[in-house]
């Protein structure tokens, strides 16, 4: 059917369908997809990201902090919103821990490059999205205490990724241990060999212990 005005009538039918349909769309599936925000909150996807935070292991943020203040993220950050100062020990010697770790989230664009570039799995993306303050600057610069969040929290917001991270850390730890053991064994073996050599001259009977 095509007569003058038919297009308008068709269009009116579509809107009428939507008006009526919105009252029969309780499941919010097809129409009326509005979320009534403060009461209804969206279920965020696991990958959903907002701003970075620092992961710490265990219960004590200061002890368990993974960050070693290597400053790779500071260098890689595209908008340069990370500021890190290395901590020093009593003697003024730099130690592998950040004294200052600030992220200006008014500058941060949530690109996740810091996360990708971190070799120590210590910086991760958060999924909070209610960040605001009454000041342009101070409330939006997150300092170390605000940034530090536990590994349990990380597991809470993105379980799959956190499990993979933990597995990687565990594997790395095992590798490291193995390597250390191997190195120790090597050293021990070398020592033993030297000792054996020395002892061989004396025709010794002792055998060096084998590492597992």
């Amino acid at each position, binding site marked *: 059917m095509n007569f003058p005005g038919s297009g308008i009538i068709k269009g009116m039918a579509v809107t009428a369908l939507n008006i009526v349909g919105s009252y029969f769309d309780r499941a919010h599936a097809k129409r009326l*997809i509005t979320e009534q925000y403060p009461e209804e909150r969206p279920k965020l996807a696991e*990958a*959903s990201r907002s701003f970075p935070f620092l992961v710490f292991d265990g219960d004590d943020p200061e002890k368990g902090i993974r960050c070693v203040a290597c400053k790779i993220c500071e260098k*890689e950050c*595209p908008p340069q919103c990370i500021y890190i100062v290395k901590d020093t020990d009593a003697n003024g010697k730099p130690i592998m821990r950040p004294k200052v770790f600030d992220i200006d989230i008014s500058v941060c664009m949530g690109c996740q490059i810091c996360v990708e570039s971190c070799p120590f799995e210590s910086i991760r993306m958060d999924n909070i999205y209610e960040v605001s303050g009454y000041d342009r600057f101070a409330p939006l610069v997150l300092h170390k205490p605000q940034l530090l969040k536990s590994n349990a929290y990380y597991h809470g917001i993105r379980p799959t990724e956190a499990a993979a991270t933990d597995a990687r850390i565990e594997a790395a730890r095992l590798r490291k241990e193995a390597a250390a053991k191997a190195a120790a064994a090597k050293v021990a073996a070398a020592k033993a060999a030297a000792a054996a050599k020395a002892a061989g001259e004396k025709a010794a009977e002792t055998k060096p212990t084998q590492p597992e």
Partner: protein
Amino acid sequence: MSASSSNFFSGTADAGALEVSLGPHHPSTHGVFRMNVRMEGETVVKLQPVFGYLHRNHEKIAEKNSWLAAMPYTDRLDYICSGTNNWAYAVAVEKLAGIEVPERAEYLRVIVGEMTRLQNHTAFLGFILGDMGAWGSALMYAFREREKILDLFEELTGARMMLNYARFGGVRCDTPAGWLDKARAYLATYPAFLDEMEQFLTGNEILLSRLQGVGVLSAQRAINGGLSGPVLRASGVDYDIRKVDGYSIYPRLKFRVPRGEVGDCFDRFMLRLLEARESLKILQQALDQIPEGPVVNPAVKQRGFKPPAGEAYGRIEGPKGELGFHLVSNGTEKPYRYHVRPPSLINLTLLEEMCLGTKIADVMVILGSIDIVLGEVDR
């Protein structure tokens, strides 16, 4: 009404005309775009586009940062279509450094790229209706569906709009479990939505009279102006980089490239609808054929990436047209020269030509039919 003027208070030299500065703060300039328009009555006799209000120094920032650090900035070029922006930059870098891309990564790029095109064209339908003064219904329907695509994006990449998904030699992450099925299921409902939109809009007499015969652009002028994308194809030029360059896995996929005959706003409008349907076909094929495998070339070092010295121009068919990156490397960690060829800006160059002799209300529709994003125009 003769060629009379309405310029009784404007003290310009030409007393017969009314000069209006449309924008930069104007409801329908799609951002901070400004047009100095001279009108006789309501007819436009001169139009001077003024842009740069959203200039963010994109190219220099990229040259100051590392190669990888430019990637999230490309999201912000055309912030509606960040998926294709990432892809175009990655294509240019891969060309520069001669990087192979794994099969699965190519598929994922096509899937994200075509979804981007789909949501861009969907949003376009709403935007242009807004420019015509419809009270947001079309826009809300379009956004309703676009939101669902953005939800898919969020599950895949973590962000709804600023995907930052492509990487040199692949993509950043693999799909989460069940994502492909979800995408397949959602896209199966999409033709019904497009049908609804078509029923809602295409027959509407007011819409037809507002779009048909407005802003006509001949094929020759479109080619001479360097236009690309749906605007060029609406003028009847068969030019789609997906077919011309045959990059990525497009040669393997079956799809058609629509083109119009008249080159007016209505053709541009219809082309978006038709292209959205073709994108759906591509998506179905890509989602069905996607192989297993790595999603990024493990040989490529993303951090501290140093391509060999040289230059390359990589381009893809973005939703708005040819999106190209011209990169010059001097072998260091930073691009020596980084240049963007934004489709929005090039397509905008013929705005005055399309607008002359039309009414002031048409200017908004023509501007809308070009489908610009100021983030890309001003960079």
